[in-house]
């Protein structure tokens, strides 16, 4: 039973890792966000179990890949904040990833329902 739980946890973890980029790009497509705002918005989805330790390295990777851009902006309450926004390449990547995610979800749902 313990091995089963461990296997299940490992699988869930892998699945979450696979979709975290899509979640970040999806949030930034709605509106530019600053780092801790992104962390808070993702933390509001407990199923994703995403922490700051995941978000910040991921944001750096997406920026290096040219999918998001960053820019310091003045804040009405407190010091300036670094905001992230999708680049045109990021919009394209989000569209492609969303389509892939939908296709995979449909395929898996079909298989699982057939198995039932």
């Amino acid at each position, binding site marked *: 039973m313990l091995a089963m739980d461990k296997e299940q946890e490992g699988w869930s973890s892998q699945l979450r890792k696979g979709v975290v980029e899509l979640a970040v790009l999806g949030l930034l497509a709605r509106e530019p966000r600053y780092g801790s705002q992104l962390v808070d918005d993702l933390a509001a989805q407990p199923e994703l179990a995403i922490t700051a330790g995941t978000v910040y390295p991921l*944001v*750096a990777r997406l*920026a290096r890949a040219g999918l998001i851009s960053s820019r310091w902006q003045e804040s009405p309450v407190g010091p300036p904040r670094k905001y992230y926004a999708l680049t045109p390449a990021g919009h394209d990547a989000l569209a492609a990833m969303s389509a892939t995610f939908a296709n995979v979800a449909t395929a898996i749902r079909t298989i699982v329902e057939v198995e039932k």
Partner: protein
Amino acid sequence: MIVSLEELSPQARAALNTELDVLVAPVAAEDRQAVREALAAHFADNLDATAGPADVAAIAATVGDAESEQPGRFGVPLDLAPPSGEKVARSWWNPRDERLFVPRVFGLGWAINFGAAAVKLGLIEPDAEDEPFETTPAPAFRAAALAPAALTAAVIAHYVVRGPGLPDQLPNQMDLAGRGTDPIPTPVAAALDIAVAAIPTAWAGSLVAAGKGGPRTAGALAAATTAASVSAWLTVWRTAATDGKARPWAGPLVLAAAWLPAGAVLFGLARAGRTAEQVRDLGGKK
């Protein structure tokens, strides 16, 4: 998708080899070839024959850092890849990584991630710089170089001024109580302390003098500051320890001398980089 990396242009292949070198650097020597081959296969799956260096870089950026399951011995991380300034900077200053203790730059054990410490203390944001030290301006590097230079000068001045009055031998080892043991001739101790401080300082200083910045120079300055600070402290301790008295605080102070000044140097350079980014984006208002 390509079947063989030979299908890439020479420029793309060269860029790929460089990226692979960087990506496998944190991996233990015995696993490096296997990881490299797996990564090469991943690149081959995602590149076509017309790909250029920019395409290689874009894929490399999505590969990510080595997973936290580090190679090591009995749970202690081990890294035998040659140390470099860039490696020092990325290990000692990674504010995006929440871990306070990260694998050592070289050898077995852990080092302090000053970036994580600064974030936990509320001194800097995890994403204060897009890439650590890339926007840090040259004057900040020049100012940071003063720290190891001043410490090295202090070590040299100590032996020049006090040398004639020192005993013939100075301790070379410290026991748990902080007493000096294993005496060596004073000129040898002096040469050792001066070399430990001066060689890394000269290396870091040459990078700064050549106008080089970025993580490589930041790491070189941090390493030089550590070496010069430890050397300065050991110089003081060697001279004091000739009286044979116990100094239990001597050992912890060596550790503090090894880490704290380097952390301060990296923090200062990162804050300067953050300020430069804000000036760029906010037009001087910050």
